[in-house]
């Protein structure tokens, strides 16, 4: 290929005069200054929040790892009584749950929140306070869950919490802690996913077209979209199980028409994509590390994009392969077996691309590469046993045995932990301005690699010999004794490897020199960062012409540092970044970002109060906490979003002038609402799935329409809520036309319609005397109706917000982000209500 690389926008030919540059840098530093003292904890910048997030999730990893060691001590010899059966149950439940929910997913979001803005040459992601809110939710929920084991109150139903074990046989508080604690954390995970998706799509630097996006961003985008669709089934399932435990609605109680298998469907509809949500962002780190050390561009960029997107989709078709032994029809098992085998294609494709890149280049020896190669070896073995258990007849034999334990650890440690550690070694200089020791890194690797294989390779055999998982002990002379002892020794060697990393990370490095800038000679924009790093993210936002700007764009470092690109200044003392178009990254808007605030922390504390008080059934305190949380969120929205700039446009350099305010589908907040509502709609679809699931297993579900909810009330409620939606749309149009009075009338009518509609909907099952504790049919009808009513209630708060905003002059004909976004929300409400009405009153007539 001999074509010249086109450059559409050149940086300034000459740098600004030195005194101008220094004044610019001073203003930028002032605008992006990290708060000091106790106010440090009000920081919302990605460099701080990302570091806290990464550190905290690593602490949870160590905690869960310590529990694993306790379990291995217990299993080291037959008949051991080191842990009681009760404590053992809590240990494996908390180990699995913490590793999944408090380490694997959060560390992906932590690393992405930290790196992605740097990689995109953005000053920060579009919603820094949302990221901070997600972090604080994660910390509060995580401490709540982990702390419970010290009070002998931890969940003990396994990380997948199957009912009826967890609904009828474990009356303690453990299952509630799991259900509510993790629901709270999942809210945080979705919040971070929204941030990452909008960041990847809308905050790329000018010129970074979609074909030039770093592979890490592709993977992050796919994984974040997967979170949006995978977490809601679990939230819906957790809601059903918690309602059964708290209020005795029998969703999973077979005696009253429920079915425990519904939980398995919902859980694994989340649980299997979850594996790939963990795997893809970890392998994304590999996709950044491999070209750096092979010194050549990645081979097969397009094929890796195929692999990321393809895996993202296919992973949603695998959930039943965790349920092969539940008695589903043969054809169902075969379909899922087919998808489980198909997912090996994209997974394999990316590995071939990485191996091809290594062969194409001259690989430089380094600690990150060592961990990457270790990851390949381990993950390939895990992938192969994965194809084995994807086959139904083999799975029948291996199900719930230690073979599965070995398989999943090979997949997760090879596919996630080793790449993450490789990433930590690789990015440590960016995160902390210091390097980790290469020698200690090598020692840690070999301890971890050997220890891991000594621990988990024998487990395949332990499982094939028949040892079931999750037993606290075993009889002697069944063929398990030596294998278990070897596994325990291996586990401690692995732990020693991790300990070496921790010691290396924690040892004081104050006297060591800063590493040189871009110490690995890497190629993507995050390595622009100076050593030590500055809080501004990047000195000026470059025009990107290549997938590897630091390799291909001459003088780019100099041009960035001298402020020859966009936004080299913060004249108004504000935090700003550039919003661009989704495909071609053409500049659209100069987005003002909020600065440090305690509001995200207070929001997380009060919302956490709702979940934690709810766990202890202190309903009045829970509701009070929720009301305060809503107040905090309104304050947050009022003071820090949809801000009215002092001028229409701003000159961001290189002759480019961009608007400071943008509403509707071009704005980042519209996208955030859309993505959030897609997640909410997915949860709703799962509830509807539950309704039809009950229909497939019962001959008398739904019963005769005369026993269902009152048609008249449901019809009236639906009509009123649809009218509220139409009225909201009219209000938006009227507002755009600049007419004040009709807007107030339409908004007030929408509030009235929503309130009366919600009451009428609730009257549907109430007037028919449906008792939700009697049978699963009234329970699911009530739940669907309550779901709609809650949506209406939230919609009323939003409409009220718009009325006040209009009166206060915050909402005008041109600046109408609030009303645009509220209208988008109401589109979803209308759809939800219409589907609910069709299901609860229409379907019984045709079934």
């Amino acid at each position, binding site marked *: 290929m001999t074509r010249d690389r086109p450059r559409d926008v050149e940086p300034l030919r000459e740098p600004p005069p030195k005194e101008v540059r220094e004044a610019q840098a001073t203003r930028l530093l002032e605008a992006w200054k990290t708060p000091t003292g106790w106010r440090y904890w009000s920081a919302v910048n990605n460099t701080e929040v990302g570091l806290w997030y990464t550190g905290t999730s690593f602490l949870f990893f160590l905690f869960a790892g310590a529990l694993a060691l306790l379990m291995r001590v217990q299993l080291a010899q037959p008949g051991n009584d080191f842990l009681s059966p009760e404590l053992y149950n809590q240990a494996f439940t908390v180990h699995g749950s913490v590793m999944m929910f408090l380490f694997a997913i959060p560390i992906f979001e932590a690393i992405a929140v930290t790196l992605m803005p740097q990689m995109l040459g953005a000053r920060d992601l579009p919603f820094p306070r949302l990221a901070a809110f997600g972090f604080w939710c994660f910390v509060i929920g995580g401490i709540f869950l982990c702390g419970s084991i010290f009070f002998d109150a931890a969940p003990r139903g396994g990380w997948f919490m199957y009912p009826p074990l967890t609904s009828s046989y474990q009356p303690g508080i453990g299952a509630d802690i799991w259900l509510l604690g993790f629901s709270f954390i999942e809210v945080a995970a979705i919040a971070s996913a929204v941030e990452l998706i909008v960041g990847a799509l809308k905050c790329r630097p000018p010129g970074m077209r979609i074909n030039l996006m770093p592979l890490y961003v592709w993977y992050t985008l796919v994984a974040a979209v997967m979170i949006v669709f995978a977490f809601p089934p679990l939230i819906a399932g957790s809601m059903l199980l918690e309602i059964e435990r708290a209020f005795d609605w029998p969703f999973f109680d077979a005696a009253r028409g429920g079915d425990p298998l519904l939980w398995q469907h919902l859980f694994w509809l989340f649980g299997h994509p979850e594996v790939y949500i963990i795997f893809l962002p970890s392998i994304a780190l590999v996709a950044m590390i491999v070209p750096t050390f092979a010194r050549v*561009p990645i081979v097969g960029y397009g094929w890796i994009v*195929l692999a990321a997107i393809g895996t993202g989709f296919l992973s949603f078709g695998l959930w039943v392969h965790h349920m092969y032994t539940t008695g589903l029809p043969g054809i169902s098992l075969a379909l899922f*077996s087919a998808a489980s085998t198909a997912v090996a294609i994209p997974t394999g494709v990316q590995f071939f691309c990485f191996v091809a890149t290594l062969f194409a280049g001259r690989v430089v020896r380094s600690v990150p590469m060592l961990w990457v190669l270790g990851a390949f070896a381990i993950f390939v073995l895990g992938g192969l046993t994965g194809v084995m258990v994807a086959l139904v007849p083999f799975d029948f034999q291996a199900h719930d045995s230690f073979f599965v334990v070995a398989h999943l650890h090979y997949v997760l440690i090879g596919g996630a932990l080793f790449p993450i550690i490789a990433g930590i070694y690789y990015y440590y200089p960016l995160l902390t301005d210091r390097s980790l020791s290469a020698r200690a890194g090598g020692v840690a690797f070999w301890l971890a690699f050997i220890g891991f294989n000594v621990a988990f390779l024998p487990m395949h055999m332990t499982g094939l010999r028949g040892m079931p998982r999750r037993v606290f002990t075993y009889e002697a002379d069944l063929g398990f004794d030596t294998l278990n002892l070897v596994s325990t020794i291996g586990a401690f060697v692995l732990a020693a490897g991790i300990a070496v990393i921790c010691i290396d990370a924690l040892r004081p490095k104050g006297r060591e020199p800063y590493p040189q800038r871009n110490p690995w000679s890497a190629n993507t924009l995050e390595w622009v960062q100076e050593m030590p790093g500055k809080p501004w993210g990047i000195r000026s936002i470059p025009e990107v012409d290549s997938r590897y700007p630091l390799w291909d764009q001459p003088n780019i470092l100099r041009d960035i540092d001298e402020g020859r690109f966009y936004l080299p200044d913060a004249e108004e003392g504000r935090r700003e970044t550039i919003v661009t178009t989704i495909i071609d990254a053409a500049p659209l808007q100069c987005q003002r970002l909020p600065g440090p605030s305690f509001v995200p922390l207070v929001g997380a504390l009060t919302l956490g109060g709702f979940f934690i008080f709810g766990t202890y059934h202190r309903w009045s305190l829970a509701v009070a906490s929720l009301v305060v949380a809503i107040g905090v969120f309104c304050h947050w929205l009022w003071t820090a979003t949809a801000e009215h700039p002092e001028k229409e446009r701003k000159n961001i350099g290189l002759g480019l002038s961009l608007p400071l305010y943008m509403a509707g589908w071009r704005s980042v907040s519209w996208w955030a609402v859309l993505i959030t509502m897609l997640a909410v709609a997915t949860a709703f679809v799962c509830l509807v799935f539950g309704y039809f699931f009950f229909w497939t297993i019962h001959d008398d579900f739904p019963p005769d329409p005369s026993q269902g909810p009152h048609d008249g009330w449901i019809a009236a409620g639906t009509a009123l809520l649809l009218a509220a939606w139409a009225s909201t749309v009219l209000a938006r149009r009227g507002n755009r036309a600049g007419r004040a009075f009709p807007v107030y009338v339409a908004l007030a009518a929408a509030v009235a319609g929503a309130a009366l509609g919600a009451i009428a909907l609730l009257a549907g099952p109430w007037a028919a005397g449906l008792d939700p504790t009697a049978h699963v049919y009234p329970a699911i009808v009530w739940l669907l109706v309550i779901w709609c009513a809650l949506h209406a209630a939230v919609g009323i708060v939003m409409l009220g917000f718009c009325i006040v905003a209009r009166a206060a002059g915050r909402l005008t004909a041109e600046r109408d982000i609030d009303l645009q976004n509220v209208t988008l929300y109401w589109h979803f409400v209308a759809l939800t209500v219409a589907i609910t009405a069709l299901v609860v009153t229409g379907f019984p007539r045709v079934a």
Partner: protein
Amino acid sequence: MSRSKESPPERPRYLALLAAPPAIWAAHFLVAYCTAAVWCEKVASPGGSLGAAGIAIWIFTALALVAIGTIGLLAWRRHRHGDGEPPHDFDSAADRHRFLGFACLLLSGLSAAAVFYSALALRLVGSCQ
């Protein structure tokens, strides 16, 4: 085949098309699974044959393959737009267009393979047993 060298403007549907082939796989998978599940629970006895549901799933499979093939063809044309060759990594609207076509073409291939795997499952295990 068009060999136009004009730079195609940015349209969100170009990106959306990327998700179309795997979305068709997902729709096919879900419809096939639901059809089989409902048939086996509501119509056939345990261990019964798939009967009409089997025929319906074969029709879904044919439709899905035709749809994926059509998108694949469109993607092929985009990939061949103008005179660029992979890796389509230039900062130009034409290379971006070719890249999206290429990625969509690959996804069409993967989705077709995955639909074919489902059909294979139907062929090999065609009953509710």
